[in-house]
C-alpha cells in the first residue's frame, strides 16, 4: 500500500513542469478570449457594485467603497479563476479527454500531474488577479509600492483554491456536482470573507466562521497592501493558506489515486 502511494506523489521537483507547459501551450492558442473571460466577471462586479453601491455606502473602513472593494475583487478573481480551471478544465483533461491517462504512460506519476495542474491553475489565478490589480491601480485604488505585495498573495490564493478544487474534482462523478461546490462553498465564501462588505457587519457567529475561510485570509493580506496600511498577523494568514493548500493536495492525491490507479 505504501509502495503504491508513491505513484500518487510527485516523482521529483521538476516533472510537474511538463504538465504545466502542456496546459500553457493549449492556453496560448486561446489566450485572448481566456483573459477577457477571466476579467469580465470581476470587472462587472467591481464597477457595478463599486459605482452603484459606492454612492449609497459612502466610506468603508476609512476609505472609499471602490478602494475597499478592489482587494475583495482581486482575491475573488484569483479564487474563481483557479477553482474553475480545476473543476472544469482539469476534470475534462482527467476524465473526458483522457489526457492524464496518456501522461501516466510516461515516466510522470499521478502526483506530478496533480502538481502540474495546481501550478497551472495558480498561474491562471495569478494572471486574472494581477489584471484586476493593474486596472485597480490605474483607477487610483492601489498604494505604491505596497501593491507589489499583492502579487505573491494572489499566486498563493490561486494555489490554495486549486488544491481545494482538486479534492472536488477527485470526488465528483460528473460536471453536475460542481454546481454544489460553487453555490454552497465558493459563492457564500465571497460574502463571508469580507470581499464585498466588512466582516464586522456579519452576525457574531458568522464572524467566528470567517476565521477559517481561506478567502478571508487572502483578503486580509491583499487589502492592507492595496491601501498601503500595515498588515497584521502576516504569518497566520500565509500559514492558513499554506495549510489548506498542502492538506488538500495530499487529500486529493489519495482520492485521485483511488479513482484512477485501480
Amino acid at each position, binding site marked *: 500500500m505504501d509502495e503504491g502511494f508513491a505513484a500518487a506523489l510527485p516523482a521529483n521537483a521538476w516533472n510537474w513542469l511538463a504538465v504545466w507547459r*502542456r496546459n500553457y501551450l493549449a492556453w496560448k492558442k486561446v489566450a485572448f478570449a481566456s483573459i477577457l473571460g477571466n476579467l469580465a466577471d470581476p470587472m462587472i462586479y467591481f464597477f457595478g457594485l463599486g459605482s452603484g453601491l459606492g454612492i449609497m455606502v459612502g466610506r468603508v473602513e476609512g476609505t472609499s467603497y471602490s478602494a475597499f472593494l478592489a482587494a475583495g475583487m482581486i482575491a475573488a478573481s484569483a479564487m474563481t479563476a483557479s477553482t474553475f480551471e480545476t473543476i472544469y478544465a482539469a476534470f475534462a483533461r482527467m476524465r473526458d479527454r483522457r489526457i492524464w491517462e496518456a501522461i501516466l504512460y510516461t*515516466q510522470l506519476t499521478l502526483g506530478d500531474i496533480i502538481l502540474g495542474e495546481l501550478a497551472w491553475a495558480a498561474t491562471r489565478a495569478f494572471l486574472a488577479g494581477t489584471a484586476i490589480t493593474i486596472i485597480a491601480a490605474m483607477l487610483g485604488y492601489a498604494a505604491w509600492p505596497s501593491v507589489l505585495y499583492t502579487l505573491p498573495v494572489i499566486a498563493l490564493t490561486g494555489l490554495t483554491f486549486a488544491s481545494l478544487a482538486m479534492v472536488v474534482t477527485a470526488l465528483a462523478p460528473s460536471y453536475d456536482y460542481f454546481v454544489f461546490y460553487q453555490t454552497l462553498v465558493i459563492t457564500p465564501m465571497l460574502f463571508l470573507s469580507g470581499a464585498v462588505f466588512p466582516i464586522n457587519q456579519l452576525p457574531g457567529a458568522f464572524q467566528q466562521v470567517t476565521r477559517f475561510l481561506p478567502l478571508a485570509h487572502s483578503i486580509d493580506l491583499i487589502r492592507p497592501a492595496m491601501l498601503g496600511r500595515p498588515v497584521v498577523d502576516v504569518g497566520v494568514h500565509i500559514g492558513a493558506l499554506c495549510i489548506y493548500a498542502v492538506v488538500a493536495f495530499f487529500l486529493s492525491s489519495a482520492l485521485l489515486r483511488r479513482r484512477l490507479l485501480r
Partner: protein
Amino acid sequence: MSKFAMELTGVKKSYGDKIVVDGLSFTVAPGECFGLLGPNGAGKSTIARMVLGMISPDAGKITVLGEPVPSRARWARMRVGVVPQFDNLDLEFTARENLLVFGRYFGKSARELEAVIPSLLEFARLESKANARVAELSGGMKRRLTLARALINDPQLLVLDEPTTGLDPHARHLIWERLRILLARGKTIILTTHFMEEAERLCDRLCVLEHGRNIAEGSPHALIDKHIGCHVIEIFGGNPRELSSLIRPYVQHIEMSGETLYCYAPDPEQVRVQLRERAGLRLLQRPPNLEDVFLRLTGREMEK
C-alpha cells in the same frame, strides 16, 4: 538484468468478487512479439495496466525490462511505449505538437525532440499532416500518430492494447506493416487483441486468455497444430442438428455456431461423400486458423 523483457508470475487481480486476472504467468523474450488473445472482458486491458504499474496486482510478481513493477514502474516506463485501446491524443494540438508535448513528459528538451519528430512523423506516414490538428485526422491516422507518440522515447518495449480495433482494412494493414518494421528493428512488442488474424500475422508466441487465466500458450502454428491439426469444413444452409448426427462418425470433432457447423475433418472427402445427396448446402473447406483454436478453446456458442 533479467533475460526476459517481461515476466509475470502468478499474477492475480480482482475487483470485489470479480476475479479479472487469475494466477497468470508468462514471459516475453527480448525482440519477440507476444500476443494476449482473448474475448472482451478476459482481462487483457487490466494486464496491460498492471504491466505499466498503473494498478497493483493483488498477488504475484511482475518484472518489466528488469524493473520490478509497480515499485519501479516509473523507471520501466522510461523505456516503454504505449498504444492504448482508445485514442487519447491531445485534440487541441497538431500532430507535431502532440509529439513535442509527449516527449517533454519524458524530460526531453525541445531541441532533442525537434531532431526526432520529423522521422517519427515519416514513420507514421504523417509527414504532410505535421501541422494538422488531431481532430482533422482520420481514425487510421490517429492510430499511427499514437504509434509515433509511443516511440518518442525510443522504447525497447511496446505495449499495444488492441491497436487496430475499429480501423478499416487498409488502415489496419498499414499499422501491421509498421509494427513488423519495428520488430525488425529489434523492439519487443506485447499486443492484446481479440483479432485472430492480427495475432496470427504478428505474434511469435501468444497466450489465449479466458476469465483471466492462461488456457493455452505457444506459437500460432503450434497452437493450430495442437488443437485442430486438420482441415475445417464449414457447412451452412441445412438443419445443423440433423447434419451433425449424420456426419459425426466421420469427423474428429464437430461444433455448432448459430446456423453453421464446423467440422474438424482429418479426411474431408468422407464428409463430402455423406453430404453429396443434399441440395442447398454450402460447404467451405479450408485450412485451420487461430480463430478455430480460439473458438475451440473458449467454445463456439456465444451464450456460455
